[in-house]
């Protein structure tokens, strides 16, 4: 897998791009390449991360303007080809705004910017993004968001549930998300969007390694 390269998209206002690169290269020895949002050539990367941050200053709505970048335009074919895309925090917001994933992320119920470690239950094994755990087990990942309340209508929630597309649920709902949802996948399973930050949980010395598995799964073909 030495030649495998993960592309990390950089928008104006991204601020977790280097964290993702550090986690992939430093902790997992996976090669990364930064992709400026204006590039539309995705041929030399095998999977893509949309990192956290505040693309375009969150103007209008989080992720609303990033959606129009040439790179996101090319991402449609990339996803269709079955290659893997991981959207973390602002990346998840961009994936919903762009229509890759259903629903929307809105202001937290209590209006606080929440920066905390949260316990999460792995719900689906679709896409193989998370280690299979039994019902009593959970993972712990950090969250850091002001607009992370997942919202969708009842029909969408039913579809997510019936098709096993809910990836992660908060054990204790911190932000008012519909049905405690913290992350979802597309039908094929090759696109995952989540509010927690796996790249911030890849080294014991900074509090945990529960994010390693998800980042490592970027090199699953």
């Amino acid at each position, binding site marked *: 897998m030495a030649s495998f390269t993960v592309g990390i998209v950089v928008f104006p206002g991204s601020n977790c791009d280097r964290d993702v690169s550090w986690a992939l290269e430093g902790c997992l020895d996976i090669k990364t390449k930064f992709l400026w949002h204006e590039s539309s050539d995705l041929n030399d990367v095998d999977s893509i991360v949309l990192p956290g941050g505040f693309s375009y200053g969150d103007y209008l709505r989080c992720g*609303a303007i990033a959606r*129009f970048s040439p790179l996101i335009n090319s991402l449609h074919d990339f996803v269709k080809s079955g290659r893997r895309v991981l959207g973390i925090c602002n990346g998840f917001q961009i994936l919903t705004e762009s229509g890759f994933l*259903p629903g*929307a992320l*809105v*202001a937290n119920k209590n209006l606080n910017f929440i920066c905390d470690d949260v316990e999460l239950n792995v719900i689906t094994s679709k896409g193989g993004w998370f280690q299979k755990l039994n019902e009593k087990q959970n993972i712990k990942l950090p969250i850091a968001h002001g607009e992370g309340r997942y*919202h*969708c209508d009842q029909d969408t929630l039913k579809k997510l549930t019936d098709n096993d597309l809910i990836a992660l649920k908060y054990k204790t709902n911190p932000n*008012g998300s519909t049905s405690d949802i913290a992350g979802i996948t597309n039908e094929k399973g090759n696109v995952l969007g989540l509010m927690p930050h796996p790249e911030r949980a890849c080294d014991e010395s900074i509090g945990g390694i529960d994010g390693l598995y998800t980042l490592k799964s970027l090199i699953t073909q």
Partner: protein
Amino acid sequence: MDQFEVKVFIRLRPSVLDPAGEAIKSASSKLGVAGIKSLRIGKMIEVKIQSNEEDIKEKIELLCDRLFANTVIEDYEYSINKL
């Protein structure tokens, strides 16, 4: 081509909780104004645009559907004024 001034009003759908609206509702009662039953925050976007009269509605609806509003969580309405 004519000049138009368009005002677009964007509101959170009634089913979406508006915590910022709730916070302002609470601040309003602290100001001593009683009786507020509901308070919700929206956005207003003013656009000045040159267009043919027959295309203007289509252009504004494209902007609203694809950019100004996210119809998963928001409704919009607009008024068009020919200058």
